[in-house]
């Protein structure tokens, strides 16, 4: 066990003079280190103290301090402690030493900092573009403060992603950008010899939406939760909850107890629906459509229930900074209990039916293995980590909402294959049902909104929430009436970086279920503007017209941006 004070002392001892700030919640420590000390301190924290890297945030703070800031957010899972190591970077020479050689899991986050803020990570092993679109001009960094949120880049013909060269004597199988089993765009290139995969390459981030920029430039504190909810169609409540908690942590607002319980209930209902959804999709991927139909039938009951509670099947619109917008009345509590009883009985039937299925075991066991060591290095979270024997769960390790009051068991398995990831999720299904029951039992009376929450500017807050797919992290620097910087790290972000490791020595037939077994949500990882096209007239577009339409953002006035 290490407390915040001990950790501060250790860091001072190790690095000499460092600037320490703390936040009010007592669980967050912010340390500013010199650029030359970054590698040493990161190495010390990750390898000696056993912390886990959550993500890296690049912030343009030139209006306040005249510097860019790069923050590495670490989690001490056993100690309920979040550590943010920051370096300040001079805009005249925006270069830092990459920590990816020390922590492979920092790979994407550092490339993202380079793409969005323009701070170059030196000695990065894979310095290709990550987040920005392939036709985006060089040297234009969208997350800088002087960058307008509605900027449209100039037209480019035939932009192509930078791809890895295929190894000799292999052929390329592509999974994506549009693939029938992955409902979202993601481009995996598999280098195969016959059916065996010998290497892979990934290009994603096809549906950027500019969500962070929008929050930093346009919306205000209480509009962002509704935007945050739209980061992901499946774990939307997680994101809005995580954002609200981050602002609450920064502003030292305490949400009322009843609001916390309602958040917990909604989070767990969301987890039940998400795991049932995943089970169905996993079944579909390996051709087992009976599982798909049955688990989605069970899930449907839950969707009706959430519609009764919030008015929506998904995208509930429940959270605000300081509390929630709708109460769960006594009638609804009764209804929830009834639906849960049915869901539990029906899920049990499905789980019993599939857990002994030998053909299913043949398809899932020893497929897509991820060792505990790799899981730690790539910093995977959630069911993927727990299936590899990494015992982390932010509901238990960083308790938030009503979780400190509830009894929670965390299922952990050892093999790290797709079957273990399935087992973790099946176990969690019943844990979640139990948690909702406990929360309903203990829910106190009282208000559901904090009175008159005020958010002072210039504070920082970090919040983690255990989403169904793993841990989500939101980082907020408060501004005057909107966040000065809001960084989202969705749960799929680290898991996707582990997929190339899981591909090792597998066959093409395994590829979709390996990708599926991390419960991927590609859009969660992506952040830029997208265009929703709704054209009723029949028209065939040429490639040039489509490019034109993409770049101007509309198709004959029928679209809505």
């Amino acid at each position, binding site marked *: 066990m290490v407390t915040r004070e001990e950790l501060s002392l250790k860091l001072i001892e190790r690095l000499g003079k460092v600037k320490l700030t703390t936040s009010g919640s007592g669980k967050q420590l912010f340390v500013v280190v010199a650029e030359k000390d970054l590698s040493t301190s990161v190495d010390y924290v990750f390898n000696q103290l056993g912390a886990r890297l959550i993500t890296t945030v690049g912030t343009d703070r030139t209006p306040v301090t005249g510097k860019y800031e790069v923050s590495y957010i670490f989690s001490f899972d056993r100690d309920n402690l979040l550590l943010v190591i920051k370096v300040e970077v001079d805009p005249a020479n925006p270069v830092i030493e990459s920590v990816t050689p020390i922590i492979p899991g920092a790979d994407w986050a550092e490339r993202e900092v380079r793409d969005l803020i323009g701070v170059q990570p030196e000695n990065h092993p894979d310095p290709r573009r990550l987040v920005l679109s392939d036709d985006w001009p060089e040297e234009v960094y969208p997350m800088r403060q002087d960058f307008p949120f509605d900027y449209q880049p100039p037209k480019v013909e035939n932009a192509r992603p930078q791809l890895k060269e295929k190894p000799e004597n292999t052929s390329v199988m592509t999974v994506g950008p549009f693939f*029938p089993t992955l409902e979202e765009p993601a481009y995996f290139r598999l280098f195969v010899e016959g059916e065996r995969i010998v290497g892979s390459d990934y290009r994603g981030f096809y549906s950027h939406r500019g969500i962070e920029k929008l929050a930093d430039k346009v919306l205000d504190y209480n509009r962002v939760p509704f935007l945050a909810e739209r980061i992901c169609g499946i774990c939307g409540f997680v994101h809005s909850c995580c954002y609200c908690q981050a602002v609450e942590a920064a502003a030292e607002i305490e949400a009322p107890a009843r609001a916390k319980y309602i958040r917990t209930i909604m989070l767990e209902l969301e987890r039940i629906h998400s795991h049932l959804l995943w089970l169905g999709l996993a079944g579909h991927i390996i051709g*087992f459509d009976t599982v798909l139909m049955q688990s989605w039938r069970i899930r449907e009951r839950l969707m009706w229930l959430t519609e009764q509670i919030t008015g929506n099947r998904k995208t509930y619109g429940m959270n605000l900074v300081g509390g929630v917008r709708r109460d769960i009345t006594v009638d609804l509590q009764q209804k929830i209990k009834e639906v849960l009883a049915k869901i539990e009985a029906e899920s049990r039937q499905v789980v019993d039916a599939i857990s002994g299925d030998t053909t299913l075991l043949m398809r899932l066991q020893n497929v897509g293995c991820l060792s505990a060591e790799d899981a730690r290095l790539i910093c995977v979270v959630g069911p993927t980590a727990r299936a590899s024997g990494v015992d982390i769960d932010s509901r238990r390790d960083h308790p938030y909402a009503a979780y400190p009051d509830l009894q929670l068991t965390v299922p952990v398995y050892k093999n790290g294959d797709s079957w273990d990831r399935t087992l973790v999720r099946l176990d969690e299904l019943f844990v979640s049902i139990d948690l909702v029951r406990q929360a309903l039992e203990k829910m106190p009376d009282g208000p559901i909104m904090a009175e008159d929450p005020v958010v002072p500017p210039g504070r920082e807050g970090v919040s983690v929430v255990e989403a169904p797919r793993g841990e989500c992290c939101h980082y907020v620097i408060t501004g005057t009436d909107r966040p000065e910087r809001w960084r989202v790290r969705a749960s799929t972000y680290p898991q996707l970086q582990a997929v190339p490791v899981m591909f090792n020595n597998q*066959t093409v037939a395994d590829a979709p279920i390996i990708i599926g077994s991390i419960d991927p949500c590609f859009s969660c990882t992506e952040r830029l503007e997208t265009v929703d096209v709704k054209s009723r007239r029949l028209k065939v577009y040429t490639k040039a017209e489509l490019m034109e339409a993409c770049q101007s953002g509309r198709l004959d006035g029928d679209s809505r941006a």
Partner: protein
Amino acid sequence: MLKIIFIALFNLAAALALAPLLDGFMRRIKAVVHSRQGPPLLQTYYDLFKLFSKEDREVTSDLVFRLTPVVCLGAVLLAALFTPMGGPAPLGFGGDLILLVYLLSIPGIAIMLGAMSSGSPYAMLGASREMMLVLTVEPVLFITLFTAGIKANSLVLADITGWSVSHGWSISLVIAGLALLLALQSELAKLPFDLAEAETEIMEGPFVEYSGPKLALFKWAIYAKVVIYVSLFLEVFLPGPKTGILVADLLINLVKVFIVVGLVELIELVNPRLKIDQAINYFKGVAVLALIGLAFALMGM
């Protein structure tokens, strides 16, 4: 002569016109097990009709690519004329069993050739899977049918059926029948052995580049294959009951086909797709079983 023409027309009609209904029947069963409402019974006819009326996009002007769908369906229809479906086979001669087995292997080869000519990597992978499956499963069909032929002392399908009806069960026939039943799931490209198509892995594999009428021809051939394979299995290994009235026999066979196809569909519904190496391992076991049946037949049991 009139009788033979009638049977020929009946067989062709069963293979062509009735086969989509069989697929619709399977889709209804699937829907019931899935707790779904499911499509109408005639949906497969509508699907075929829609495909035929669609524009035909060709990825290559290769003649092989254009011809293989026709060859595939043609071979299946010819096979239908050699298959007894309740009554005697309309075309038959001494040794027609050998011809039938060859005819039945043509669709698989046509699918492979068409896939390879399209040049898509998914089609290539599907074709290589199809080839591996054909090479492991077709021998089972060979061996089991020849087992029955040895018992009946003839390679004429009509003789084999007649012998089965009059002599009843024997150890070798039971084992061979069982082996063919185990292989049937793969011959009909049903889960867990639909690896060549595997739409969630390689997007329908060999058919990925086919569209419109050509795809319809392939699909139709696959539906027709179901009728032929199941009829063949039933006529050789479960020929009874025979009434002696031709029309009644033909109808009884159809009812039996529906029952077997229903069973095949139920097996499909409780299994995920296997990988190619797992499937081949499975069929090695089935082939050994078929060989045991053959050995018993050679010993006269």
